[in-house]
């Protein structure tokens, strides 16, 4: 019964929302909108569980003195401080807390995010180095294509030979686009097939372990 109810719900709602896509009436669109609001509600409940997991995970780490356990205090402190500032700052007369929350976000969290993102540039360089080592025919093809693309998008490329930007554009618009579209066809059918498998109850791994 524990499995039958979710399977039944998925079957009924899956078929309903499949039909809903073809029915533009007010009732149909309203039901769809309400279902989206339900999703938000469910997410709100799930976030409580997620925060519980985060707190448990770090408390356990501190308790068991796992490697780098003192950093867990920083995580928990960040969670408590930012939550309190965010919640209390909304109350009248406590605008200062909201301001502190905003500044912590702007001057601490945002730069840390940006720093992490910036690391990507270095990783790209090391990954490109590996990808462009011409150890096979495919890698050689990649190297040549990459050479033209990189030269084609900078002014130096056109200075060397004015056809280089055209070659770069052709590589992007013809072979690259063809490959992308081929992958997208497969992805589209894969998504439809996965949805169908779940709606028909053939795929049950999402229920846990693909049980019978």
């Amino acid at each position, binding site marked *: 019964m524990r499995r039958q109810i979710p399977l039944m719900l998925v079957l009924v709602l899956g078929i309903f929302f*499949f039909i809903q*896509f*073809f*029915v*533009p*009436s*007010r009732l*149909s*669109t309203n039901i769809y909108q309400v279902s989206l609001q339900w*999703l938000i509600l*469910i*997410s709100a409940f*799930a*976030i409580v*569980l*997620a*925060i519980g*997991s*985060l707190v*448990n*995970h770090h408390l356990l780490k501190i308790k068991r003195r796992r490697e*780098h356990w003192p950093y867990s205090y920083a995580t928990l402190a960040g969670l408590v401080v930012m939550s309190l500032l965010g919640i209390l700052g909304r109350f009248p007369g406590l605008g200062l807390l909201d301001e502190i929350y905003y500044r912590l976000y702007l001057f601490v*969290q945002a730069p*840390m*995010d*940006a720093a*992490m*993102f910036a*690391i*990507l540039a270095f*990783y*790209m360089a*090391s*990954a*490109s180095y*590996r*990808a462009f080592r011409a150890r096979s025919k495919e890698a050689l093809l990649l190297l040549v294509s990459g050479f033209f693309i990189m030269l084609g998008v900078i002014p130096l490329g056109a200075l060397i030979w004015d056809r280089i930007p055209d070659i770069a554009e052709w590589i992007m618009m013809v072979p690259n686009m063809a490959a992308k579209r081929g*992958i*997208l066809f*497969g*992805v589209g*059918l*894969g*998504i*439809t*097939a*996965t*949805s*169908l*498998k*779940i709606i028909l109850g*053939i*795929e049950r*791994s*999402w*229920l*846990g*372990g*693909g*049980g019978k």
Partner: protein
Amino acid sequence: MRSITVIGLILLGSAAALTQPMPAAPADPAPPPVQPPGLVTAMDTPNDAGNSISVDWRPSPDEAQGLVEGYVVYRSESAEAPESLWTRVGYVPYGLNQSRDQSVPENGMDFFYRVRVVSRLGASAVSQASNPARSSEQWYNSMRTNALIASLLFVAIVVYFITMAQKGQHLFVRRIAGLSAVEEAVGRATEMGRPILFVPGLSSISDVATIAALNILGQVAKKTAEYDTPLLVPNRDPVVYTVAQEVVKEAYSEIGRPDAYNHDSVFYLTDSQMGFASGVDGIMTRERPATNFFMGMFWAESLILAETGAATGAIQIAGTDAIHQLPFFITACDYTLIGEELYAASAYLARDPKLLGTLKGQDWSKALIVLLLVAGLALSLINPGVRGFILNILTVG
């Protein structure tokens, strides 16, 4: 002395000018008239939920001269209504000659429309009232008939192959290197006594790639339960976290080792994209997992994760349908499931005939699409006029 005299004369001249009466400012000339738009037609917007009427008109002849700035659309309950009873319902700039009134107060009631052209110089002229039009809601979107037919055809093909598989027909599925390596990757982690890291993407549960990732997680968790290998599943989305937890727990139960399930193995990290990447990088460098799985939807963090994993020496198996992240995974990981292989993974690993049937259905549908593409290409080469017709057939409204 002479300069003082000159300055004095200038000042005197200025004073004399100030005492003169000011000439009257010339009145602004009336802007040149503009010709009104031609025939205005109104009709119910097709395939919608009602309360919407589409209006189109013939542009003002002055638009070709570049004199027109735009068109204002008005609605009224009567064609003969006085000016004050016409409600403004839209504005479109020059170059466009249609508008959609989505604020029709009542379905089934006649409304009339007029269009006022506004010139760049401020003149305006209003058209004749349109024909009466009434909005209504539809119960079937005829512009999606092609999608309906394609979906039903796809379902029929898939159901056919499932039936064939259930009857015991052997279905050949090509070897997917990344999935064949799963067993080996889990075995390696077991031998090394290190954990396995599984990241189910950074997207929400409404993304089918995430569901595909969770399906693979179920299969991987069964193997880790069998070998008693520690599993780490960090999550970015709270709903995905709760589902992942259930998937792993059930996988352990199914293998008959519910006691081996560690509640702390599936955990929530953070909602922040780069925060999550940083957290997973930290896990990889501290815990040194022997195998990393990156399955599902990824964005800019894909390379950050995969490169860190590669630096730790882990075997890495990635799978995503995000085509812009595929090159990064292919470069930095040992195996990559490209696009649809991610969706095929669960069937491939489970070897359930019904699931394999759906794979065959997918393949045949793909073959059908390729056939249609070739046929469409050939037809449009033979007769270029057919191209528009083919594109119309393929457009979903």
